[in-house]
């Protein structure tokens, strides 16, 4: 079987999602028998030219340079996979979308005129067609591996969990932190895949996998109000690592 030719790209991000490839300590060497990392700056000096079978893209698009690059990536890749919260919803950088970008530049840079950024940090899907998404801040390395193995078997789209974190939470045997402790939790509206990590560690879900399929953030928002959680705190809860996703954005906007 021909090896799958893979490129791994980084845009505005923390490197944590592509790092998950390198965190596959038990599988990486075997995996490199099945796929060729033709372009993977974080791991290799060697760069194999395109076209690529699959491009994994980490990060959001936040500068004019990145817009050009993502278009080039799209052109030279048969399948484009957005990995992680930044590449699927804009991620943490998108927090600046809520503010005055010019003010941000002035706050951070003494010479703001040198800094060229787009008005909004957005996921690649804003600019090009994205074939598949792997969610999470960061993506889970197990999901990443499973995705690749499914792709190798010709399974498209590869299946990953899309129902709520609650389902995984209860399967894992956790007690609902919202009901039992009154801890605000985004689990009921957030896509599973993490294995309900946060509730397993005694805290509410902070929504890093973004909205689940068919989410009801309005109903959760209403419940938070009933529980007398302060408006600002409700807003901050939805305004985290997937704040720019359509469904969470609506709740954030209510409190802007």
């Amino acid at each position: 079987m021909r090896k799958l030719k893979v490129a791994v790209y980084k845009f505005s991000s923390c490197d944590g999602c592509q790092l998950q490839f390198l965190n596959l300590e038990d599988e990486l060497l075997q995996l490199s028998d099945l796929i060729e990392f033709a372009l993977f700056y974080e791991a290799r000096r060697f760069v194999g030219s395109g076209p690529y079978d699959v491009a994994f893209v980490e990060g959001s698009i936040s500068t004019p340079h990145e817009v050009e690059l993502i278009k080039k990536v799209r052109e030279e890749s048969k399948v484009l996979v957005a990995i992680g919260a930044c590449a699927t919803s804009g991620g943490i950088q998108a927090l600046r979308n809520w503010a005055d970008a010019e003010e941000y530049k002035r706050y951070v840079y003494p010479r703001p005129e040198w800094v060229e950024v787009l008005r909004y940090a957005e996921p690649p899907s804003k600019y090009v067609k994205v074939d598949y998404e792997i969610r999470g801040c960061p993506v889970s390395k197990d999901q990443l591996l499973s995705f690749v193995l499914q792709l190798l078997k010709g399974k498209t789209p590869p299946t990953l969990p899309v129902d709520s974190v609650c389902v995984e939470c209860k399967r894992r045997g956790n007690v609902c932190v919202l009901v039992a402790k009154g801890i605000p939790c985004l689990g009921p509206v957030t896509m599973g895949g993490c294995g309900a990590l946060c509730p397993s560690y005694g805290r509410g879900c902070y929504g890093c996998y973004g909205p689940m399929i068919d989410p009801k953030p309005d109903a959760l928002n209403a419940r938070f109000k009933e529980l007398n959680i302060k408006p600002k705190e409700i807003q901050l809860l939805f305004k985290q690592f997937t704040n720019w996703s359509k469904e969470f954005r609506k709740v954030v906007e209510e409190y802007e």
Partner: protein
Amino acid sequence: MWVSLTGLYVGRVDSLRVLFDELRRSGYFVVGYRVVDGVLRLGELSSFDELAQGVEDVQGPGRYSLISGSFYRHGPDSPKKFLYPPYLTLFKVSSGWDVVVPVREVRRLAFFGLKPCDLASIKVLDRVLLGVDDYYESLRKNMVLIVENCTTPGNTCFCSTMNTGPRARDSFDLAYTRLGDKLVLEAGSVLGLKLLNVLEVEPIDDATYERFEATMRNASEKARAGFELNGLPEELELRIESKVYEKVTEKCLGCANCNMVCPTCFCFDVLDVPLIDGSAERVRVWDGCLNFTYGQVAGGHFRPDLWARYRHFVLHKFAYWVKQFGTFGCVGCGRCITWCPTGIDLRETVRSVLRGGKSG
């Protein structure tokens, strides 16, 4: 099914410890409620002292807390967790197509202090899974059920309506009721009889019997849902197009917590996991009808709207189940009410549907 073999006997509350130790001595893994992080959890106990004591659970729609008290009902876990585990590997298949079913350890479980609603949930699962799921069956055959009758049902309980409590009537090995420092006992099986023999008991006296009856009567009054079971499946099906489901679902998150905590929800999904060495496994996992993907097929969806999925949940428990398995799917434990993050009350839904007309 078995019923009471002995009638009622009286012993002392502290003989529960003797009973517990006897089960351990006989090689059972004793499963009961203990307090973990402020919640009653069903788990394996190595000593009687680990059993929750001196606490009471306060339950309401979307609310759960523990306070000090003398009687508790339950927590989010039900026997389903042990008998029908959330993850079960169905088979592994090697790259060369050898299909292997993992060997599973069958432990001898003794449920200690289960409430009648949970006993009823096992009876429901029996109807669904006995003769079908051999893992369930093997656990079930090696199992002991010690049931504690419910003297004080909670705010979300409606076992009286569902005819599952507050007093267990059959299918237990031993049922007991705490009346102060007295214990009223009843054996429902030969094994229960043997266990009773280990304790020091007397036939029940008039005064204790009256107290027992009064306690159960009172308890029964507290656990009503405000609707009747007679004709319920038909009444609900006649109102299958009721708008109540849409109304109620405005509060619903579609998170499927209700499915997950329900002691009888048995739907499963399978995960196909390819592994790096070329082998693969297939895992059975709990699923629930509130999940969007539940009714989804390639290129279509049978219940794209949440209200339709919620309606299926309600009708399955109260109407379809009866046709499928000859029993209601709901045992009135109230877990789906308590553990619903937005506190949707199943009892209220049923009442509203019944109150409304055919499309009301």
